[in-house]
C-alpha cells in the first residue's frame, strides 16, 4: 500500500516542477527546429547528464539497481517516430498532457485518456500478436555486473553505451555527461527572462525528483526504475475500467499509476495557488479531434517503443540505455516531421 502513496508523492513533486517550470518536452523538441529556441531542451539535457551520474552513484552505493530497457529496433524506431508525431497533434507529450490536466485543460483530458487507452490496447487483444512479433527483434544484454544492474528470473535488461563499448560505466557516464556539459555551457542559450524557473533550475529539480523516485520505487515498490508516465496511465485506466465490468480482476493502483495521479494533483495545486487554473476549451472543436488522433498515435508509439519522453528520454537516457537513446532520437525526428506538417517551415527571421 505504501508503494502507490510514495508514487503519488513523487508525482506531486514532479507535477509542481512541470507546472511552475512549464516543462514541455513537445515544445523542447519542436522549438529547436521551429524557432531555434533551446531553453527547454537544455533543461532536459542537463537533467539527463546529472541524473546519469546520480543513478550510477546510487547503484554503486547499493541503493538501486540499474534497469536499462531491452533494445527492440522495430519498437524504438517505428514507435519512436509515431510517438514523436502524436505528441505534436495531441498538443503535449506524456508528461505535458498530464500536468495540463491539472491546469484545467480539457483538450489534455481527452488526449491523456486516449493516450492511456491506446497504450493499453496496443499491448493486448487484437494487437497482441504484433507486439509479440516485434518482441522477437529484441536485443537483451547479459548482466555485466549484478551488483549495479538489475537481475532476476524474469528480468531482462538491454545494452547500454558502456556495454557496447565494453568499458567501465563510470568512464562512459562521465564522458557522456562531459559532452552534454560542453554543449550546455559552450553554446548560446535562448533567453527567457520572464520564466519562473531558469533552465538550469529545471534541470537540477528534475534530477533530484528522478533520483528520489528511483530510490523510493526500488526500495518500497520493487520497481527498479525512475520517473515514467506511460505505464502509469495504463495502470490508472485498468484500475478504473476493469473494476467496472467485474469479470476480470482489476489491478490496484501501483507506483507508476501513483506518479500520474500525483502529477495531476501537484500541477492542480500549483496552478490554483498561482491563479493559473482555469477550465480551458479550445476555440475550435477540431482540436479535440487532433487530441484523439494524437493520443492514439502517441499511445501506440509509446507502447511499441516501451516508453515515452519521460521513461525513455529523461530516465532511460540517464541509464545510458541504447534503446532509450535511439527512441529519443526518433521522438525528436517524429516531432520535427509533424511540426513541419502542422506549422510550416522554420522561421528565418528569428535569431538564435
Amino acid at each position, binding site marked *: 500500500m505504501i508503494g502507490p502513496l510514495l508514487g503519488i508523492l513523487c508525482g506531486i513533486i514532479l507535477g509542481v516542477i512541470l507546472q511552475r517550470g512549464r516543462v514541455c518536452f513537445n515544445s523542447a523538441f519542436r*522549438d529547436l527546429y521551429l524557432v531555434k529556441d533551446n531553453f527547454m531542451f537544455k533543461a532536459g539535457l542537463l537533467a539527463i547528464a546529472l541524473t546519469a551520474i546520480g543513478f550510477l552513484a546510487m547503484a554503486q552505493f547499493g541503493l538501486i539497481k540499474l534497469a536499462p530497457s531491452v533494445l527492440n529496433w522495430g519498437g524504438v524506431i517505428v514507435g519512436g517516430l509515431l510517438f514523436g508525431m502524436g505528441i505534436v497533434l495531441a498538443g503535449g507529450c506524456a508528461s505535458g498532457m498530464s500536468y495540463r490536466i491539472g491546469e484545467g485543460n480539457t483538450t489534455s483530458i481527452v488526449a491523456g485518456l486516449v493516450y492511456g487507452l491506446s497504450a493499453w490496447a496496443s499491448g493486448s487483444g487484437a494487437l497482441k500478436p504484433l507486439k509479440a512479433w516485434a518482441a522477437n527483434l529484441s536485443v537483451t544484454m547479459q548482466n555485466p555486473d549484478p551488483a549495479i544492474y538489475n537481475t532476476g528470473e524474469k528480468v531482462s535488461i538491454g545494452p547500454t553505451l558502456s556495454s557496447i563499448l565494453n568499458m567501465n560505466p563510470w568512464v562512459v557516464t562521465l564522458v557522456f555527461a562531459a559532452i552534454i556539459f560542453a554543449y550546455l555551457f559552450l553554446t548560446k542559450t*535562448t*533567453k*527567457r527572462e520572464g520564466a519562473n524557473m531558469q533552465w538550469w533550475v529545471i534541470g537540477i529539480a528534475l534530477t533530484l525528483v528522478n533520483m528520489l523516485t528511483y530510490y523510493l520505487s526500488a526500495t518500497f515498490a520493487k520497481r527498479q526504475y525512475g520517473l515514467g508516465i506511460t505505464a502509469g496511465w495504463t495502470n490508472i485506466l485498468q484500475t478504473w475500467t476493469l473494476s467496472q465490468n467485474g469479470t476480470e480482476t482489476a489491478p490496484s493502483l501501483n507506483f507508476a499509476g501513483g506518479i500520474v495521479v500525483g502529477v495531476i494533483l501537484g500541477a492542480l495545486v500549483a496552478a490554483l495557488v498561482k491563479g*493559473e487554473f482555469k477550465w480551458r476549451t*479550445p476555440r475550435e472543436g477540431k482540436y479535440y479531434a487532433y487530441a484523439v488522433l494524437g493520443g492514439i498515435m502517441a499511445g501506440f508509439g509509446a507502447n511499441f517503443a516501451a516508453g515515452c519522453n519521460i521513461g525513455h528520454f529523461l530516465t532511460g537516457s540517464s541509464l545510458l540505455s541504447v534503446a532509450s537513446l535511439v527512441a529519443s532520437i526518433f521522438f525528436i525526428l517524429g516531432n520535427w516531421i509533424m511540426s513541419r506538417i502542422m506549422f510550416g517551415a522554420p522561421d528565418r527571421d528569428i535569431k538564435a
Partner: protein
Amino acid sequence: MDEIKPTKTINECGEVCPVPDVDTKRALGKMKPGEILEVLIDYPLSKERIPATVERMGHEVLKVEETGPSEWRILILVK
C-alpha cells in the same frame, strides 16, 4: 491612463502552445513598422514564450498585462 490603441487584436484564448506563438508570428509578418499588435492569451507558457520570441524577431514588447484569472494581454510594437 496610458491607453495604447492596438492596430490589430488576435484572440488566442483556449489555444495552447505553439498555436498562439505561430499565430502571433504570422500576424506580425503582415504588419507594418509602428503598428501595434494585441495578443489575448490564457495559456501560462505563452505569456513567457511570446515576449521572448517576439524580441528575438526584433520587435518591442510594450506590455504584458494580467486581465483576469489566467488571462493576459500582450502589446507588441512592430519594428
